[in-house]
């Protein structure tokens, strides 16, 4: 390996995270990540990818937990590596984060550690939510508001959920130093104010930084192709592409929904290389759909903007919102999102 790829930063044990660097915007950990990421030619994304596969490790995930993650709208974030995060301290993090949130909600007034609040915070690992054994374990945080009623039937309500994962990240990351945990993808569901508070606590505690992950039209067309290529026993919804037309003075949205079996037939006509999807195939798939559309309406979709893709596997919006619908391809969807997250951290 080229020595220039070896991370320069040597973590000093016992030294608190360098907050000054964080505030000046030039975090050492950002520099760190740039060197952690495998070197690819500047700005280039892979021109071929594997067809989403079911990971053997996925069998280890509690099916109830998977069901909980499906059909929810998640807002995507990228996360720089966490400094001195430890899976053995999850219980302690729960308490600390709970106190932090309680203090924030009381506008900075100190709160007692043992105090009973009307909500609780839980950290739990999502074992099996990984592509290879080298991926760090995913974990989940939930804020549960305790029911006000004393009756035992009253259920606690989950008000906020967030989870951190890294699926097939090892092929894109160089050796991550021992003191760092790299879970580049963070998904949140719940009030944005809670996401912001929890983000602040993570920044303070692990000197990491959250950024919204947006999905370009280019990557959306990859998703359209990859998810159409998946073999489904039965299709829940149509393959729908939503295009936004930047015309003035009135905006125009065009929803182009294709019967999922017909979309698969088109994909099979386009697809050549087994087990892989190439950039050319993605382009051809979208071009074919655009030209079929043009034949009817004389509108060039290529001059408009693809903003949303939804299929029976998942749906994704350019502003970084995603819904995963099919448990079989959960890992495949997360692998692509992990890749996008790693490439967006600059």
């Amino acid at each position: 390996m080229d020595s220039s790829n070896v991370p320069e930063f040597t973590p000093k044990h016992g030294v608190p995270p360098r907050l000054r660097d964080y505030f000046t915007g030039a975090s050492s950990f950002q520099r760190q990540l740039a060197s952690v990421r495998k070197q690819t030619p500047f700005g280039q994304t892979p021109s071929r990818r594997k067809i989403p596969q079911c990971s053997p490790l996925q069998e280890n995930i509690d099916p109830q937990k998977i069901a909980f993650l499906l059909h929810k709208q998640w807002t995507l974030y990228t996360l720089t590596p966490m400094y001195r995060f430890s899976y053995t301290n999850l219980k302690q993090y729960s308490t600390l984060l709970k106190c932090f949130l309680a203090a924030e909600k009381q506008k900075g007034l100190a709160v007692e550690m043992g105090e009973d609040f009307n909500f609780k915070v839980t950290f739990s690992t999502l074992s099996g939510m990984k592509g290879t054994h080298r991926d760090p374990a995913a974990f989940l945080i939930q804020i549960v508001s305790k029911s006000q009623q004393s009756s035992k039937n009253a259920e606690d309500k989950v008000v906020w959920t967030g989870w951190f994962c890294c699926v097939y990240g090892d092929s894109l990351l160089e050796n991550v130093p021992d003191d760092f945990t790299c879970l580049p993808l963070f998904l949140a569901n719940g009030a944005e104010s809670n996401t912001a508070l929890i983000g602040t606590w993570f920044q303070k505690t692990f000197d990491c930084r959250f950024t919204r992950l947006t999905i370009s039209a280019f990557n959306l067309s990859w998703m359209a192709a990859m998810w159409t290529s998946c073999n489904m026993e039965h299709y829940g919804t149509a393959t729908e592409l939503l295009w936004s037309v930047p015309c003035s003075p009135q905006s125009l949205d065009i929803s182009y929904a294709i019967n999922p079996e017909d979309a698969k037939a088109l994909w099979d006509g386009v697809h050549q290389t087994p087990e892989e999807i190439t950039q050319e195939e993605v382009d051809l798939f979208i071009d074919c759909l655009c030209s079929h559309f043009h034949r009817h309406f004389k509108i060039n979709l290529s001059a408009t903007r693809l903003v949303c893709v939804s299929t029976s596997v998942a749906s994704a919006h350019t502003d970084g919102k995603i819904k995963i619908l099919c448990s079989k391809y959960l890992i495949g969807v997360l692998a692509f999102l992990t890749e996008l997250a790693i490439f967006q951290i600059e």
Partner: protein
Amino acid sequence: MYGTSQLWVAGRWGRAFADNVSSNWWSLKASRTDPGLARSVNFMSAWEAGAALAGVIGMDEIVAEFIRRTILKIPVAEIGKILRIWNFIPESQLKTINLKQCKENVSQDVVELCKKKRASMKEAAILDIIYHQTCQIKKIWTVYKMTKAPGEEVDLSDMEEFKDSFKKVLQRALKNVHISFRDSEDTAVWIRIAWGTPYMKPNQYKTTYMVYHSQTPFVFISHCRIKKYIPELWQALMTAGNYHKIQQMELRSLYLDSLKAIVFKQYNQDFQTYCLTSLEEENSEVEIVDPRIIHENMKEKERIQRVTRETFGDYVQPRIEFAQYKLETKFKTDPKNGILAEREEPFRCLVKFSSPHLLEALKSLAPAGIADAPLSSLLTCIPHKAMNYFTIREK
């Protein structure tokens, strides 16, 4: 300018019991206090009993609540205007309402004044119609076209006869149904129907609205979620209007006036007058164009402008918000790649266009370089064909 007429069709039970106010008073109280008893007297319809009592004990609470909620729906700026059109509360009392306070208080003040005048559901329904006439983009309207039987094309029906016959037919079919009419400025009648059954009071919050222009075969309907009475509605409409058949035109919009402009071809007339003048104007434009612009470019731009004008005219388009196309055509792309060339079955798609002002948006596509000029007739035919829902198959 505005005339109102109204019919409250009470059920047989309701009418029978309305004769005996004291027994109604008892059943009303009973239904509120004892659920078991309420079930046994429910078929008498406590609500009707309450309505019958309104004249004796002041305004019904249900009417008060309906008026309160109607006022809350109205935008603040329109409340004064709508109350004046309603003309139920005298002007002198209207002036006492402070329209600058919060809406909740305004609605309470209006309810108090209505209580003094003992408003009934009859008046309250008219207030609701005026609200929908004034604030029109709250409902999706669907256009229906009716046809006469052969040999009966001459229409001599009178609007009053139409209303009378319409309510009689519906009343016979459903017993408990609350129908209100209100004439609008453009010779149309607005019909509001609150549905009930022989055993259930009409639901004033789930109403069907219809707008009917006499001497025309078109009726504009905004359905409520209750759709099971559509056969009865068609029966009443066709009997009253002396029509033979009714069919839905695939045309829907939030903008009733635009739908009228499209089906009454007001749109087309404007269009033709425009076309005669457009060609003359064009010559003067050529002179002011910068001569350095490449000739072909300019020619092409001109052509796009001309074609767009020929297609859409130069005035504001009728306003609709969506169009939908179900495509069941053969898949065709570039013949070079031959993808799916052998496939015989149609490639099934559903394409939806949506915009705050769809036709204006479509008009701007070719000049912006996003579409070819002329645009596909599938899109430009919307106003001429008076349709915005299509199924497209191979010829």
